[in-house]
């Protein structure tokens, strides 16, 4: 494999025929920067058709090329057709990198086509840097439960495949550029699709589980006692906000995954983020560091969270929470 034969950075545009997944647009904005650094084109791979307004939105991120794919097998998302498609496209066009939003679908097919090619696949990077010396992309991410940062590269193989969690990068479109369209047809025989959707039941919309857009978040860490949870719920409610948690709280089975804030959960940007008993591991901090004001309460004066907060209180989390409730009630 000669790395010089490979050119251009791709972003898979996940959509439902009506709207593009926000993560795909976030990725276009971020990859625009590293494609410029590398002097390569930003290519958006769109399977099926998009409404004109969505294509417009996509072009506003500065894509140079839209690779529009049609064919059989893409009527509903299935790993078989999409893994085949990207294997075929990568072998034909030789991109240097392929970025896929870290949705359930994206995380299903990206590692699979990477394995088939084969090439290296990374997941959940929180920072991307293009290294002019090696021409490799550095995928930087928290490791070992957030206690270290690891730089991951794919130094020999191409393309470099990465899945990135929604909300990791910001949607800041830099404006249209001259954009060409390549039409491509790749048929996948429908008989070879091995999965079939029989039914889909949308979750009852539970507003309390939708924390991504909350203005105020009360986040509990691993130190939380199950019996104390109602206190934190009440505090969140009195402040007009919502309850969130760190990953270990979910691992203990105390709160649902949709409330997990961090690298492998939801990325939040509330005006006020109040943490109780949160140690401050980077993979959690990654998910909340853009909050307007960060308040930390922890009994350990050396807890890392105090390095990230605007205001800190060393003390017993339940005691501070109860005092805050008393303060708000009066």
């Amino acid at each position, binding site marked *: 494999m000669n790395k010089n034969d490979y050119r251009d950075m791709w972003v898979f545009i996940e959509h439902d025929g009506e709207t593009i997944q926000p993560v795909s647009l976030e990725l276009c904005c971020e990859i625009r920067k590293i494609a410029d650094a590398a002097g390569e084109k930003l290519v958006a791979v769109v399977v099926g058709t998009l409404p004109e307004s969505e294509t417009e939105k996509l072009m506003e991120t500065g894509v140079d090329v839209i690779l529009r794919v049609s064919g059989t097998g893409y009527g509903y998302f299935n790993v078989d057709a999409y*893994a085949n498609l990207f294997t075929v496209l990568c072998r034909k066009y030789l991109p240097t990198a392929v970025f896929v939003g870290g949705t359930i679908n994206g*995380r299903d097919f990206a590692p699979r086509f990477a394995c088939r090619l084969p090439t*290296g696949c990374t997941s959940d990077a929180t920072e991307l840097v293009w290294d002019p010396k090696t021409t490799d992309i550095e995928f930087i991410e928290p490791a070992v439960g957030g*206690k270290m*940062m690891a730089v991951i*590269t794919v130094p020999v193989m191409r393309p470099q495949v990465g899945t990135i969690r929604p909300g990791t990068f910001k949607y800041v479109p830099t404006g249209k550029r001259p954009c060409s369209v390549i039409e491509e047809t790749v048929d996948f025989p429908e008989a070879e699709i091995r*999965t079939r*959707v*029989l039914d*889909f039941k949308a979750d009852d919309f539970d507003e309390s589980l939708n924390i991504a857009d909350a203005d105020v978040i009360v986040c509990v860490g691993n130190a939380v006692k199950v019996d104390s949870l109602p206190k934190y719920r009440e505090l969140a409610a009195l402040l007009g906000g919502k309850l969130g948690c760190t990953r270990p709280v979910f691992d203990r089975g105390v709160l649902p995954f949709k409330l997990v804030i961090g690298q492998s959960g939801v990325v939040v940007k509330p005006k006020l983020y109040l943490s109780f008993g949160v140690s401050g591991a980077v993979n959690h901090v990654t998910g909340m560091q853009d909050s307007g004001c960060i308040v930390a309460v922890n009994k350990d004066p050396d807890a890392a969270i105090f390095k990230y907060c605007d205001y800190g209180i060393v003390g017993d989390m339940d005691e501070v929470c109860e005092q805050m409730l008393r303060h708000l009630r009066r």
Partner: protein
Amino acid sequence: MLNILVCVKQVPDVNLVKIDPVTGSLIRKGVPAILNPLDANALEAAVQTKEQYGGTVTCITMGPDQAAEALRECLAAGADKAILLSDRAFANADTLATSYVITSAAKLFGSFDLIFCGKESLDGATGQMGSQLAERFDASQLSSMSLLLAVDEAGKTVTAERELEKGVETAEAKLPCLFTVEKTNYRPRIPNLKSWKASRTAEITTLNSLSIPGLDPAQIGDPGSPTKVPRTYPPVVGESGHMIDEGSTEKNVDTLFELIADVL
């Protein structure tokens, strides 16, 4: 009779890993190695499936010799057979190389109808192993599987529920099928004393790189891993925030509310 495989990993309990403040390296000493918590849910799903439809549950792992302990935990909780893949040549493998070794070895033990994996590991946490194992087993895949509804052995299909971002999907997949398992409905069982005791002395089949015929040395361990970790560094942290220390919780909270008044 179903031939069921569960792929597991032994991981350091990362919540207990500390960083040496001087060298910045990980202090692994004294940190217990545990069965990856989400793999216990995968095992439970596999054992429940065996109990309902009949069959054999084989668990497999790649790791150092002490990873046998994770397999014994699986045997105590209902697995029938255990395979340990242990060789220095397997070290420093990424998901591509690991999935290659696991599938190459597993194929020596027959063809599997159902393969169960945890959603991700506590340490690497890439969440990629399920997809890459499915690719190498040439299996269909149902990720985020929360409830296995039915196995149709004659029709060679399986039906299961998946927990997706916005709801629950019911899907049908052809066998062989690989699942990554949600913990929702598969809380790990507590082994009884008898099965725990039996697991202590149960046989564990151990293979190295030479005992897997045809294994390509270029595809295992470090040489077989396209992703590299050229460096790690401690997270960059800022200066401490403004610490509120007024002598009592009551005064601290009053001060806090004054300070955050403009954001509320």
